[in-house]
């Protein structure tokens, strides 16, 4: 009997089921804007779906009974948990949202080296058992020590039959990117508004890390009222000030830092502004000037997002007048959670100027 015992096909059916569940989760993300499924940045994504168990008559009291019956596979109260690699999750999400990979500019002169076991040699440390056995079997048949017809089953492994995995140097160009997050602390950034902003910042953070590779993107946070300051990521969401506001100062600061601290030829710049959009007319004009003259020529992408704007919000209207349908400068309006995905599409989707 020459059979290889495996459950590959049945595993395939189960994996298809999980894939369907995953699609549903992605649909959920897209419909509800639930884009923050990460425990730690770059870590695997924990996905939970209802467990499937064939329902049978079992003992148990009524208090257990929160399960949802359903036909076919019964659904128990239990959950199936599995890890989805961060890379894979972002790829799926990118595909679903039809987000193109970000264009990497710069020479990518810095190279990243890794070793992949791609070749096979006669000397080495890690023995490739399958290849070794195949060669040994071939030579044993040739030398006549293995001949089932004569009831001979010996397989001699000679030194020259051995095959080892040999590491091969792989070079990948490494690109550098920096992302500036700018926030208005003069408006009421708390409650739902804060949650909306956090969720969006988190996604941008993950998306850039996914595109450039974790560790290759520097994320810097800035806040402003009438003055602009660099803050820690935690402070970005916590500091507040009730007073006047001048947003142009933060755009100005970011453009100065970009040019003074980074090699503009080899760095990919990203900048995202979050605020309620309530700025003075001259402030908005100043911002448009900074965007046009300083930032647009050097930045890969700039996003201006009005979070829960009011009727007095003016910033995006002014920017739109100048940069409507611009490939680099994008605008978004985030009124509620379900709009998150639309804003993401606006910020990162393909657009030809």
């Amino acid at each position, binding site marked *: 009997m020459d059979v290889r*015992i495996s*459950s590959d096909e049945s*595993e395939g*059916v*189960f994996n298809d089921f999980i894939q369907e569940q995953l699609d549903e989760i992605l649909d959920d993300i897209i419909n509800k804007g639930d884009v923050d499924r990460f425990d730690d940045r770059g870590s695997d994504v924990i996905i939970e779906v209802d467990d499937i168990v*064939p329902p049978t008559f079992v003992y*148990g009291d009524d208090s257990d*009974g929160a399960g*949802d019956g359903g036909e076919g596979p019964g659904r128990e109260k239990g959950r199936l948990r599995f890890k989805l690699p961060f890379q894979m999750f972002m790829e799926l999400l990118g595909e679903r949202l039809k987000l193109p990979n970000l264009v990497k500019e710069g020479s990518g002169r810095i190279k990243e080296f890794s070793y992949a076991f791609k070749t096979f040699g006669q000397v080495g440390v890690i023995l490739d058992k399958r290849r070794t056995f195949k060669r040994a079997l071939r030579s044993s048949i040739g030398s006549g020590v293995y001949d089932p017809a004569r009831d001979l089953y010996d397989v001699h492994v000679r030194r020259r039959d051995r095959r080892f995995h040999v590491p091969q140097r792989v070079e990948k160009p490494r690109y550098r990117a920096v992302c500036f997050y700018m926030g208005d602390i003069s408006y009421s950034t708390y409650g739902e508004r804060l949650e909306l902003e956090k969720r969006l910042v988190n996604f941008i953070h993950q998306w850039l890390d996914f595109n450039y590779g974790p560790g290759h993107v520097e994320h810097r946070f800035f806040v402003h009222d009438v003055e602009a300051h660099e803050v820690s990521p935690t402070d970005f969401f916590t500091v507040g000030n009730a007073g006047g506001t001048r947003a142009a100062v933060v755009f100005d600061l970011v453009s100065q830092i970009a040019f003074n601290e980074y090699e503009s030829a080899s760095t990919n710049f990203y900048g995202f502004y979050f605020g309620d959009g309530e700025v003075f007319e001259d402030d908005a004009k100043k911002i448009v000037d900074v965007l046009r003259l300083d930032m647009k020529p050097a930045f890969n992408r700039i996003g201006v997002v009005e979070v829960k704007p009011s009727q007095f919000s003016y910033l995006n209207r002014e920017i739109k007048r100048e940069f409507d349908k611009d490939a680099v400068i994008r605008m978004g309006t985030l009124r509620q959670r379900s709009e998150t995905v639309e804003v993401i599409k606006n910020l990162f989707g393909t657009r030809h100027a």
Partner: protein
Amino acid sequence: MRSVRSDSVLAELEQRVLHHAQLMGRRLPEIRFFILEPLEFASLLEKDVYPTSPINIWEGKRMVHKKHAIETGLESSLFYEVVQTGDPSYAYLNDGNSPVTQASVMAHVVGHCEFSERNVLGDSNANRTEYVMHLVREVDRARRQMGAQDYLEYWNAVESVTPLISPNSQFNLRRATETEDALSAQVGSPAGESSEPEALTPVFDTLTQLLSGASEESSFESELRKRRRDETLNRRGYILKAPCQDVLDFLRHHAPASRAERTILDYKYVTRAPQDFVLRTQIMNEGWAMYWEKKIMLALFEERAVDGVIDYTRVFSNVCRPRPYFQRNPYHLGYHLWCHIEKLYREGKVSLEYREEVDREKKAHWREEREVDAIGAMGHLVDTVTDYEFLRRFLTPELAHELHLNRVDQRMAERMGVEDKDIVHRDDHYVWLDPGPVREEMLRFYTHFHRPRIYIIDSDFDDGGLLLYHREDGRPLRKDWIRPTLRNLHRIWKAPVLLLTQDQLFAVTGNQYKSEEVTPASFDEVVEKMRRGDKPYRAA
């Protein structure tokens, strides 16, 4: 998966093991040994120990989990032995095991194969594995005929009924139904007697009526009942004479099903039914296998066919370590019980004289002089009893104490709330409970196997409905699982399906599900009504 003959060392060991088994007088079917890689082994276990299985999501789910557990080190991929008994029997060895372990596995398998061949439950059958492989191909064809969605739904429906298999119950299909082909045996009569054809006694109805005196029912009623019975038999091809606990067997014979659907029912039943035998004989079976394993291994060590006696001893003592009676280690209990029984036979203590001896001094020093064939007597036990009788007859309180079946870890005893009055002995780590109730507690397992007892009591309830009955044992069924389970049964029966449990009647009719409070019926009442040919239960 490769034959053991592809490995010269193992092929030699196989020869030696079978040689010693024959020398020791073992009655064996043909045994075919195969060597598997660890993941193949894991997969085989998920296929109910057959080399192939139809595509199904449940096996896939279990296998994905198992692979993950093995890869992350949560579970060992070292499985020692797996055997599918029958003639021929298929035994599988793990590629990663050492020669001494492989030899012990082969010796162990010898015991299982003989037990399966000989035991009163008649587990072994010809070409079981081959038949299942044929069924797998049939199910595969059925899948193509039914279409993926239909196949999946039907398979899932059958999964719900898979635990309801009891081929060795006194309420199995053969005893519970009467068909045109065969009349059912009387429920309650011993299995051995029922298989004997009964002598036909001439019956003269009128005379019998007169001789038997006044009957409770009139001859008119009796005639009506007889006619109804004949009509039913003509219409459906069977009559339910008693509750049927072997629900899946009933469905595969009598549920309206297409050929493809019936193939799925057959496959599930044929692959799962042997588990009932395992449940009912596990202690005897594992004990018998350990007993012969040890004897054969000692012979192998003696002739130096294999090295590693220390390793073997370590594994053996680990497998046979005592556990409390409620955790049931069949290897430990079975092996020691067989050793104990051998000693009893050798000393002539399984005899009427010994039982009737009243002199305690004489009894304590009892030694019978005549030659006793202890092994033959043990073989007779294999031929005639199952675990229930085995334990009932030989597990005494003294032996339970000697084998530490009543020994519990102190922390566990605390968690269980064991009181001082129940403790007969203690040391730094363990306490020993009163061994008196151990046997009764262990025997209780064989009445329910820790599963709800579900019977089919009417297959024509309210015009074609299938009425199931949950036999009351003080524990309620989990309610939120009743509905999906009944739905799945409805998918198979294709007509209303109902469940009577305690004072509730649950019903699935088409897309409707309802439950209502009803007057409970005792199991004895149901059996009696069915015996008389009455409806076992009528809705209010």
